[in-house]
């Protein structure tokens, strides 16, 4: 450490050599760092409490039997109940959603990063629409699914196919999935765009310089590189959709189904909705507590495992992005 020795004729102040500004104890600095640090700690604490509480209480009721049993009509009975139809229903609707949302989301992201003129009005409108879609309340998506998919598309489809009974014009798995696809579209677009931007422009230029067309460059060079990002987007969309209940309330979820859903026009049981039913309509909340916790834990394990994978891939993509500057 370089210190300037004061001239002989000045009296040396106590500890003068060690008193750099940043090292001196500053009351306000201490308070400020402490408060903001506490806020951070508090948030992390909330997360930890929620997770530990659910894991601690849910572990007891969780078993292979629990996740592989189709419950009888009275699913409040701890001994015979299970969550298999809910897991299957949730998985089914999420898979159908993915089939719709990934292509549309990825193509939109490709347009925005590769083709769109940056300052044009239409690009800005698309971006504004994507941002807006991300902010629409989930219950409004539910209303939209009911008003558009069921009451408009479904009913007209029934008329076209000359169905006398309502087959498509009623709550069904496909409508729930499509509603969720609209809802998670921004998630896929944003994640894909991020990963497309992380690809060095040099790669594209090299490909074009070698005579490849723009489309070939995108299909053979850009997309394979962007795959982790696209996967992140897909996983995030899936984990968001798996936990959402509000959009499927009127578009396809059922309180109880005796069999597993097998057709796109079937209704289905759902893990998130089941949590809602168990916690608000239980005849005896103390008795069904372990059942409730086990169901919540199943849902949480499902969404969290997905989220964790997405966050890890995303961290890698971001690091790459930062390295590019």
């Amino acid at each position, binding site marked *: 450490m370089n210190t300037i020795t004061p001239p002989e004729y000045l009296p040396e102040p106590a500890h003068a050599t060690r008193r750099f500004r940043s090292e001196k104890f500053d009351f306000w600095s201490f308070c400020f760092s402490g408060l*903001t640090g506490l*806020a951070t700690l508090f*948030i992390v604490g909330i997360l930890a409490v929620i997770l530990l509480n659910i894991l601690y209480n849910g572990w007891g009721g969780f078993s292979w039997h629990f996740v592989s049993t189709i419950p009888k009509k009275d699913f409040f009975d701890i001994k015979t109940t299970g969550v298999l139809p809910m897991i299957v229903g949730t998985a089914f609707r999420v898979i159908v959603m993915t089939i719709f949302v990934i292509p549309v989301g990825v193509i939109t992201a490709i347009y925005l990063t590769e083709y769109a003129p940056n300052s044009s009005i239409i690009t800005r409108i*698309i971006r504004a629409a994507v941002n807006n879609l991300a902010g629409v309340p989930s*219950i409004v998506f539910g209303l939209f699914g009911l008003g558009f998919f069921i009451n408009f598309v479904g009913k007209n489809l029934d008329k076209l196919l000359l169905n006398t009974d309502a087959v498509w014009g009623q709550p069904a798995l496909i409508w729930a999935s499509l509603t969720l696809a609209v809802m998670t579209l921004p998630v896929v677009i944003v994640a894909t765009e991020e990963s497309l931007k992380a690809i060095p422009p040099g790669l594209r230029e090299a490909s074009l310089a070698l005579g490849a067309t723009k*489309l070939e460059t995108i299909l053979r060079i850009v997309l394979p590189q962007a795959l982790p990002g696209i996967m992140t987007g897909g996983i995030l969309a899936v984990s968001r959709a798996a936990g959402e209940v509000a959009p499927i309330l009127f578009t396809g979820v059922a309180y109880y189904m005796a069999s597993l859903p097998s057709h796109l026009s079937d209704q289905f049981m759902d893990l*998130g909705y089941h*949590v*809602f039913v168990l916690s608000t309509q239980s005849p005896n909340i103390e008795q069904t507590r372990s059942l409730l916790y086990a169901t919540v834990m199943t849902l949480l394990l499902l969404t969290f495992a997905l989220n964790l994978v997405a966050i890890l891939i995303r*961290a890698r993509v971001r690091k790459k992005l930062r390295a590019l500057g």
Partner: protein
Amino acid sequence: MGIHRGYQARPVEWVAEKFIFAVSLSAILMVLLIFLFVAREALPVFFGGTNTALIQPVIPTAEMDKHSPAELRRYLELTPGEFQKMDKETLKALMDVKIEALNEVPEQFRTDADAHINTTDWRYLVLPHQWTGYDKPEYIWQPVGQIKKFNIIPLFVGTLKVTMIGLLFAVPLAVGAAIYVSQLARPRVRELAKPVIEMLSGIPSVVTGFFALIVMASVLQGIFHYDTRLNAFVAGIALGIAVIPVIFSIAEDALTSVPRTYTQAALALGASRWQTAWQIVLPAALPGVFAATVLGFGRAIGETMIVLMVCSASVMSWSIFDSARSITTTIAAEMAEAVNGGPHYRILFMLGALLFAATFVSNMVGEVVIYRFKQKLEGKK
């Protein structure tokens, strides 16, 4: 000869590009469709197309021709499309059914003044009304029963109450954490804290609602000793937990995007770390923090499951320790029992449309503020 351009040169490329462009318009299409179809179901309310009066002047079936088609349509509560498709015989049958229904009104309502009014009129939707049996004008949301009361003010109050509690809880915590993580924390702490807080957004809202219902409600009651276990306060705090990650990540992003030179200049002039953070970085990033709050508001106002699980009674009260019913909750809880196409159904869709408009505006404000903020930091490109 000459050089071919556009689709003549590379037809496949040209088609692919147009296709990609067309697909990318789907986001715009979806926003438009949402607006269109939610509004479509709600439109009759705006134009007085719904009538809930129990006792209406009866039009005898024989006098059908004396009335205009528009009048008949409104009398029978049909949509224009439905009305067009019906022939005279069906209409006659419907008129008979209507008369029968009007005759079936219980005796006690014959003298009730409330039975004569259309409760979906704007007057009764937003202004207090002195219903039979009450001693003063009141705001009441009570969509079941013979006389359906659709006053939406209690729902607005409930929504605002819960949202404000949520924001008052979430904004200081989230912004404080954002300052700490982006400005003060050591790199290693930062690398760890950021994804952990972002993980909070991975918790489904139904799980947060469950946690608030089973655990938090009892703990908070133990601390504050209020009477009702499930109230707007618990719902608000739970809502706050749900919006913390939203506000945190936007605020953190805004704080990080303040140029390094600002911080370095301040430090070089002898400011301490917290002085730099508080007096230089935070003011510079203030628009971003404001936008984070606005977007958090949009998220909180639209959150459904948490409030639905924690409290649901619609009481007209500003007290935070009373129950509250938000707009989203009302839609979620009552849509299943509302008759498809009936007044209740229409009003729920109208509430949805209002909610959509509110979040649309708050999103737009947030986006514009962030856009300007980034432009300013980049030196007005």
